[in-house]
C-alpha cells in the first residue's frame, strides 16, 4: 500500500515538472514583458521589480493592436463560418449521394488534394488572385482562400460523421413531403452540432494563428492581422525585445482565453483531425 502511494506521488511530481517545461516559455515572456531591457538582460529569471507599462503602450501603438485584433476577428469569423457552411452542405451531398459515381469521384479527388502542402499553391494563388485580379488586402477574399484550403478537410470530417447517422429519419421526413434542402436544415443540421462545433473551433484556431497565407495578401498596414503585426519589432539586424515581449504577451491573450473556454473541443479536434491522413 505504501509503495503504491509513493509511486503516485512520484507520478504527480513528474507531471508537475513536465507541465512547467511546457508552459515556462509563456510565463517567462509574461514576466519579462514588464521589465526594462536592462532589467531582463541582467536577469531574465527574476520577478519584475516594477510593472513597466510603457512596454505595453509602445506595443499597442506600434502593432496597431486593436486594428489588428479587429482584422483577425473578421478573417477568422468569416472564414470559419464559410468553411462550416460549405463543408456541411457539401458533406451532406457526398454522404447521401455516394451512389452517384461522379460525386464520389470528386470527393476522392478532394481528399487527395488535402495532402498537398500550402507551398505548392502559394505562388500561383498569389500570382492569379493577388497579381492578375488585384485582390490584395481584402480580408473577404482571404477568407475565401482559407475556405478553399480548409474545405476538403471539413467535408471529409463531416461526411465521416454523417455516414454514422442512420438515413431512416430523413427518409421518413421525405415521405411526408419534405425536400432534400428542408430535410438538411430541419433534421440533419441540428444533428451535426457536435462535429460542427469541433470543426469550427479547430479551424478557427488555425486561421487565427496563420502567418504565411495572410502575409502574402495583407501587405497594407491597416489590414494586418495579429499574427503579422509582431514583425514590426523585427528588422534585418536587430529585434526590439522590450516592446516585443509585451506584444507577444498581448497577442497570446485572445488565444489563451479561447483555449480556456473551448479546451474540450480543441483537444477533440486534434483527435478527429489526426485521422485525416
Amino acid at each position, binding site marked *: 500500500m505504501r509503495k503504491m502511494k509513493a509511486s*503516485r506521488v512520484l*507520478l504527480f511530481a*513528474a*507531471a508537475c515538472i*513536465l*507541465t512547467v517545461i*511546457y*508552459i515556462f516559455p509563456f510565463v*517567462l*515572456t509574461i514576466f519579462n514583458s514588464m521589465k526594462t531591457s536592462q532589467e*531582463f538582460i541582467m536577469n531574465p*529569471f527574476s520577478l519584475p521589480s516594477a510593472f513597466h507599462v510603457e512596454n505595453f503602450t509602445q506595443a499597442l501603438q506600434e502593432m496597431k493592436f486593436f486594428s489588428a485584433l479587429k482584422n483577425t476577428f473578421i478573417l477568422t469569423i468569416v472564414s470559419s463560418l464559410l468553411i462550416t457552411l*460549405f463543408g456541411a*452542405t*457539401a458533406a451532406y*451531398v*457526398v454522404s447521401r*449521394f455516394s451512389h452517384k459515381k461522379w*460525386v464520389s469521384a*470528386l470527393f476522392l479527388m478532394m481528399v487527395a*488534394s488535402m495532402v*498537398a*502542402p*500550402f*507551398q505548392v*499553391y*502559394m*505562388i500561383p*494563388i498569389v*500570382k*492569379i488572385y493577388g497579381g492578375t485580379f488585384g485582390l490584395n488586402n481584402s480580408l473577404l477574399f482571404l477568407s*475565401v482562400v482559407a*475556405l*478553399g484550403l480548409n*474545405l476538403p478537410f471539413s467535408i471529409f470530417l463531416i461526411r465521416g460523421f454523417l455516414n454514422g447517422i442512420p438515413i431512416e429519419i430523413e*427518409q421518413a421526413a*421525405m415521405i411526408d413531403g419534405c425536400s432534400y*434542402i428542408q430535410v*438538411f436544415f430541419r433534421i440533419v443540421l441540428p444533428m451535426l452540432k457536435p462535429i460542427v462545433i469541433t470543426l469550427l473551433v479547430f479551424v478557427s484556431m488555425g486561421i*487565427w*494563428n*496563420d*502567418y*504565411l497565407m495572410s502575409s502574402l495578401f495583407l501587405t497594407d498596414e491597416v489590414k494586418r492581422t495579429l499574427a503579422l503585426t*509582431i*514583425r514590426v519589432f523585427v528588422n534585418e539586424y536587430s*529585434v526590439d*525585445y522590450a516592446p516585443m*515581449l509585451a506584444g*507577444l504577451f498581448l*497577442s497570446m491573450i485572445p*488565444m*489563451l482565453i479561447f*483555449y480556456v473556454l473551448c*479546451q474540450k473541443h*480543441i483537444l477533440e479536434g*486534434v*483527435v478527429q483531425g*489526426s485521422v485525416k*491522413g
Partner: protein
Amino acid sequence: MVGNKHGERRLILLFFVPAILVWLGILIVPFFYGIFISFTQWDGLGNDFTFVGLRNYLTIFGDSKFLDSLLKTSIYAVAVVIVSNVIAIGLGLLLTSALKGKTFFRTAMFTPNIIGGLILGYLWKFIFNFGLTAFGKSGGIAWLEKSWLTSSAYAMVAMIIVASWQLSSYLMIIYVAGLANVPKELLEAAYIDGAGKWSAFKHVTLPMIRSSFTVCVFLSIVRCFMVFDVNLALTGGGPFNSTELIALKVYNTAFTSMKFGVAQAEAVVLFLIVTVISVLQTYFSMKKEVKA
C-alpha cells in the same frame, strides 16, 4: 425517392456545386498553373515569362543550397520525429496512469499548440538569446554562455528542441486517445502471466496503439517537411543559411530572390515528397487493417 421529386437537382446545385467551384478556384486551378509556372522563367515583374522546359528542375538539382536544405530538413525530421514521439508516448502513459488531475495536466501541456508558430519562435528566440545565456554566465557553463542561435550546429539543435517541445504535446493528445482504448483486462492478464512492466508495454500496449503510432509518425514527418513559422521567427534560416529548411527555402527563392519559376519547381519537389509520405502512410495503415 427517385428522380427529382425532392429537389435533388436543386440540392446538388446549391449544396455541392459552390464547394466544387471554390475547390477548383483555390486549389485545382492554382495547382496546375503552378506546374506550368515551374516550367517557365518568371522574375515576378509583370507577365513576362518564357517557357524553359525542365531547366528549373535541372537548376535546383544542381543547386547545392537547395540540396543542402533538403538534407537538413531530413536530418531535422528524423530527430524531431524520434524525439517528439518518444516523449509523446511517455506523456501518454503518464496521463493514462493512476494520476490525479490528469485533465489539468493534459490541458496545460497542450498550450504550445494554441499559440501561433511565429509567436512561439520569438518567445524561444528570447529564451535562447537571453535566458540560456544568462543561465550559462551565472553558472559558468561555457557552452551556454553564447547564444545557440549564433552557431550553425547549435541553431539546428535549437530548432529541433522547439519543434519537439511543441509537437510532443500535440502527439500526446493522440496517444492518450489511443492508450485509453487499450483494455485493462489485457494488461492485467499479462501481469498475471508474470509479465514485467516493460514486457507488458512492449507486447500488449504497443501493438494496441499501433494505429495511433502510425498516425503520429506520419503526421510528424509531414509537419517537419512543412515547418515554416517557427523557422522564420527563431532562426530566420541563419546563421549563414544553416537552418534554412525546405519550406522557408521555397519562400525565400520566391519572395526574396524573386525567382518564381525556380521556387515553384522547389515547391513541386516538396509536394512530391509529401505525397510519397502520404501514400506510404495509406499503405501502412491498410496493411495493418488487413492483418488485424
